[in-house]
């Protein structure tokens, strides 16, 4: 579930961060799910515990997870999280690139509407 690539250029804590955000956003780890402890995850992944700890700290800072003293870390309410900022930043970059190669604004808007429609009709079981 928390597959990481030790050879990647992306730092390990960042990979863990992104993975947990991804799993929380798409509902694989719903709100309130308890995450493994830093110690446990460090051992499971054979990753430096300080690296895992850094990922958890950043996740907590950004509101993706919250921790309860003595009980561990849990997935928070994703809607409120600063995760949006990161995702939107990626979106902006993608939009800029697409505009640059000459795709029209209208076409882009249509596409967004279509994606929204599709995910509404396809993702009912998640929303209701």
């Amino acid at each position: 579930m928390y597959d990481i690539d030790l050879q990647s250029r992306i730092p390990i804590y960042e990979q863990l961060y992104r993975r947990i955000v991804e799993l929380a956003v798409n509902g694989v780890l719903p709100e309130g799910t308890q995450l493994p402890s830093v110690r446990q995850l460090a051992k499971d992944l054979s990753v430096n515990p300080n690296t895992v700890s850094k990922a958890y700290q950043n996740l907590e800072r950004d509101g993706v997870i919250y921790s309860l003293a003595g009980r561990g870390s849990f997935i928070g309410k994703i809607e409120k999280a600063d995760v949006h900022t990161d995702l939107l930043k990626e979106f902006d970059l993608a939009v800029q690139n697409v505009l640059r190669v000459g795709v029209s604004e209208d076409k882009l808007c249509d596409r967004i509407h279509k994606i929204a429609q599709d995910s509404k009709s396809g993702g009912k079981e998640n929303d209701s």
Partner: protein
Amino acid sequence: MIELKQVTKKFDDQTILDAISTRIPKGTAFGLIGSNGAGKSTILRLISGVYQTDGGEVLLDGKPIYDIPDQKRRVFFVSDETTQFHSFTIKKLADYYKHFYPRFSYELLETMLKSITLPQHKPLSTFSKGMKRQAITMLGVAARPEYLLLDEAFDGLDPSMRKLIRQILIDRMVEDEMTVIVSTHNLAEINELCDSAALIHDSKIVFSCALDDIRSNLHKLQLGWSTKAPEYSREQFEALGIEILRFEKQHSIYHLVARGEEDQLREKLAPMNPTIFDLIPLTLEEIFIYELEVLGYGCYKFDTEA
């Protein structure tokens, strides 16, 4: 915590370490990297209390280590030199270390020897180079020191053995808060195990900090402009307040190695409005090369990745 304060070490007239200072907090995995003969092993020997400094101090939790048994038994040094153990068996060495290291655990040694099979009743002289390393490393872990020092930690080990050793070290970090200090040429190993590192060059420390800080502060940039782009010079980029370690133009793409965090670099370059803007994190190996190149070490021809 281990502190090196203005530490100087000389052998005859040759200065190996020149007033270096750094801190290694407890519970970290700290990597010592550097070119050949940079002084990595000397630092480990100073920390283990084998060498005396010629200036400055090496402190373990505020107290000196050199020649003080109660301090020295908190540290275990796995040297890359194993000849002194040749006539001993693992079993005999375990008994020997048990005397000096009060927390030595036979159970832990047994557990490790289940995954790493080594003959326990044959002298080390019958072992291969890799087997000797494994044996001493395992004894070091079983001694349960607060600080485990590994010189050329992963030398002569095959990939699956390196992975196993890494797992064992991480396990001890988690269970025992053991601090691991490794010197190696293999930067991939540092990347996989360590959270902080020091780069030693020419008897001095080039940097000593958290690896993530080093990584997030140096980037490779690929920039390009569509139609009729003017020629940009290195100075023009520098005028935007960007420190450039390397500047190269190939065809119409600029390849830069620049200091700064991702957001800062994006912001500073935004006014130039590049069509292609790729920001690539560097590997430790690249950081090593570029940082040393700035200091005039090595003669690498910039080989831009296609």
